[in-house]
């Protein structure tokens, strides 16, 4: 372990990194120390991420950047005219870390998460899962009666539902905010995949088959030895 620092790019960079990391850790400690319950804290990714930004998005599949921007735009508008709402979008157990038992239970998770991220005052919070919504320090829940969760389009559907839920809550509170531009699911970052699927892969198969036929060999030999990979560095 000794002599580790000299392997860093430079001692100046290292000191800067240490100061930054230490400052962040101490700040977080002070913030968390105000009201957190240690036995519960730090269990789930959202509780850490929501300290530094207003929305937590699912790990998989990734939310398209334009849709993330729309979510952040809605939350920014809400903060300006209404209140600083935070949103946790939970797509799977992966998004809950050490507390996967909350998956499918948005309201209990909202109660749990709110205790983690509230400090001197209750933190308004919206949780979105395929199973429904959870609210803490914001309401009324009846405002979301007309906003069903889109559970059939993965992270995209959940995030779009979250945006619409924020709009509905703000409207019900008497602080309507403008609807941000919400990209369609087909305009997401996955748009290039069907093109590759429809044209690229069949074309590659045809080319490979043609080469195999020209060489008189078989397209695939199931008895051939597996490829050998170099050992990891």
């Amino acid at each position, binding site marked *: 372990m000794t002599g580790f620092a000299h392997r860093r790019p430079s001692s100046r960079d290292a000191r800067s990194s*240490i100061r*930054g990391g230490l400052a962040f850790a101490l700040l977080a*400690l002070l913030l968390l120390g105000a009201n957190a319950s240690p036995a519960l804290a730090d269990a789930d990714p959202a509780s*850490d*991420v929501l*300290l530094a930004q207003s929305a937590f998005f699912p*790990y998989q599949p990734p939310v398209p950047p334009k849709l993330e921007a729309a979510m952040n735009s809605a939350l920014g508008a809400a903060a300006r005219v209404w209140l600083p709402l935070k949103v946790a979008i939970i797509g799977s157990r992966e998004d809950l870390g050490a507390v996967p038992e909350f998956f499918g239970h948005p309201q209990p998770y909202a109660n749990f998460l709110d205790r983690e991220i509230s400090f001197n005052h209750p933190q308004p919070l919206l949780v979105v899962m395929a199973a429904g919504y959870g609210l803490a320090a914001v309401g009324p829940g009846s405002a979301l009666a007309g906003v069903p969760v889109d559970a059939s389009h993965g992270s995209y559907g959940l995030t779009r539902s979250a945006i619409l839920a924020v709009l509905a809550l703000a409207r019900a509170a008497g602080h309507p905010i403008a609807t941000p531009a919400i990209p369609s699911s087909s305009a997401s970052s996955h748009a290039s995949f069907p093109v590759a699927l429809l044209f690229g892969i069949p074309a590659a198969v045809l080319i490979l088959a043609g080469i195999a036929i020209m060489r008189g060999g078989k397209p695939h030999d199931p008895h051939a030895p597996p490829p050998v990979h170099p050992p990891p560095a």
Partner: protein
Amino acid sequence: MSCRASSPVVSAAHVEVFAQDRVVAVPAGIGVAPPLRRDGAYVRGGSCVYPLHTLEPTGLVLLGPGSTRTLGEFFELWGQPLGPRVLAGFPAPRGGHVAVYIDGVAWRADPGAAPLSPHAQVTVEVGPRVPPHANYVFPSLALAQ
């Protein structure tokens, strides 16, 4: 362990830190050399990356290929002290010591020697005991980077 322009991620561990009955956040950007490219709570990259680093402030530690890394190496990259009687600047109380749990089981040796094995749930604490989590559901994304 060297800092490289890119580092393949083959697995991940999760590290939680508690001191004096409070949470110590594990920041994004440990093991990433500045200037950091930040994006909200996340770090998207830097000038180079060690095969033991964090990109998000959740305690998720991304592991590169090669031999098993240790908790001591991680804290050294973080720039925080770790020993039998000190944790991130917090001294152990009289008669106490830094405790490490791996998957909920106490690690009896030197805290710095605790392995960061793939999918290990590691809890480090000093002061009043915080019940450690035994499991963590890891995101598949971390393994695909």
